[in-house]
């Protein structure tokens, strides 16, 4: 079946099977491979993208379900001039990633959080990242990165 959607502001379309998952459409058809697959039970959140402004797990949504939707992925997050956006830069500055596999999903989840909550507390950040698993960082520096991205002081977190 033919589907069309907006991905990172650009109209795209493709021919998919009913069973094609959104994550596979993004990775295999659109060749946007920043969105990752870390599990087959909808837990890890490495496939997190935004669909109509909500952060969702693209492994648990059919591409056909997103027909007509507005989708955003990690590839669309950098600034117009190609430099990292505030959140991406904060992950780099505060060592919020190691292997980088969860990072696209983490950044998308963090982006959605900061859209609704400009100055989240550490507890709010951790709560909002409940759906994103990281094997490398122990989360500490991810929380720090998001605090920093929101313009908050992270010196006390660094001292922990």
């Amino acid at each position, binding site marked *: 079946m033919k589907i069309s959607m907006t991905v990172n502001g650009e109209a795209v379309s493709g021919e998919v099977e009913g069973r094609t*998952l959104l994550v596979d459409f993004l990775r295999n058809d659109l060749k946007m491979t920043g969105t990752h697959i870390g599990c087959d039970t909808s837990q890890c*959140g490495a496939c997190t993208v935004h669909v109509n402004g909500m952060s969702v797990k693209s492994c648990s*949504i059919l591409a056909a379900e997103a027909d007509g939707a507005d989708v955003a992925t990690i590839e669309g997050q950098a600034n117009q001039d190609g430099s990292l956006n505030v959140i991406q830069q904060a992950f780099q500055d505060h060592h919020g990633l190691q292997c980088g596999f969860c990072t696209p999903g983490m950044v998308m989840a963090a982006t959605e959080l900061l859209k609704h909550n400009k100055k989240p507390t550490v507890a709010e950040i951790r709560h909002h990242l409940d759906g994103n698993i990281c094997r490398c960082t122990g989360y500490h520096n991810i929380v720090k990165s998001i605090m920093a991205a929101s313009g908050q002081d992270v010196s006390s977190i660094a001292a922990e």
Partner: protein
Amino acid sequence: MIPAPFSYHRPSALTDAIAILSEHGDDARVMAGGHSLIPMMKLRMADIPHLIDLQDIPNLSDISVEGSRVKMGAMVTQAQVIADQGLAHAAPLLKEAALQIADPQVRYMGTVGGNVANGDPANDMPGLMQCLDASFTLVGPNGTRAVNARAFYEAAYMTAREDEEVLTEISFDAHAAGYAYEKQKRKIGDYATAASAVLLSKDGGRCSSASIAMTNLSDTPIFSEAASAALIGTQLDDAAIKQAVSAALGDIDPTEDNRGPVAFKMHVAGVILTRAIQRAWSRA
């Protein structure tokens, strides 16, 4: 990870969805948020030749609170339950429970209707709806009928819904009451080792009404009439709580799994019930 092939349908009218269900019987299934069904299809534990996406059917995401009557369309998401101020005011128990279901991404997609219609005893909303004495509206080729949540669950994945029916609405009367949804789980996103929904009303220092239901401690959610009765008229002293917990434990039948053996689950259920009753009473 890869579901078996299927035909995808996205009707824009409920009658069309019911027509597809009627045509294909057990070979068709409606999909709401898809966050139980798609995972099952990816593991090939569910093979659904005709999948019917309900997202284009109007009004299924509506929430209405008129006086004490609360109505939720079946496609209301857990995120909506958490965000809706009117709902939080009328039935704070719902928000407390929804925040303990899954994780933010899943809550944006997963719906209340899917949660209650799924039939998995591990889902949290079914016990909650039994506690609230909710009614489920089912629409099929022969019209509309209502089934009480306390009569809806027959066994694991077996409910009173017929193959060609769609659960469209959940409604209940919200009464001012102390509330608690207490859930023991291994980690975020896990189904309960044991969970309990409690509503208690207080009149002159005594319990005037009580409703107690439990999650994932039998092959269906369990509403415990006996536990509720054990509290009514008492001042919720330790003896009354013990009696209610003992009555509730008599109504459940947990099975051993990765969350623990039966004896452990009985123990945890007792702890969770006690906490839920105490917290609901403190809010009554």
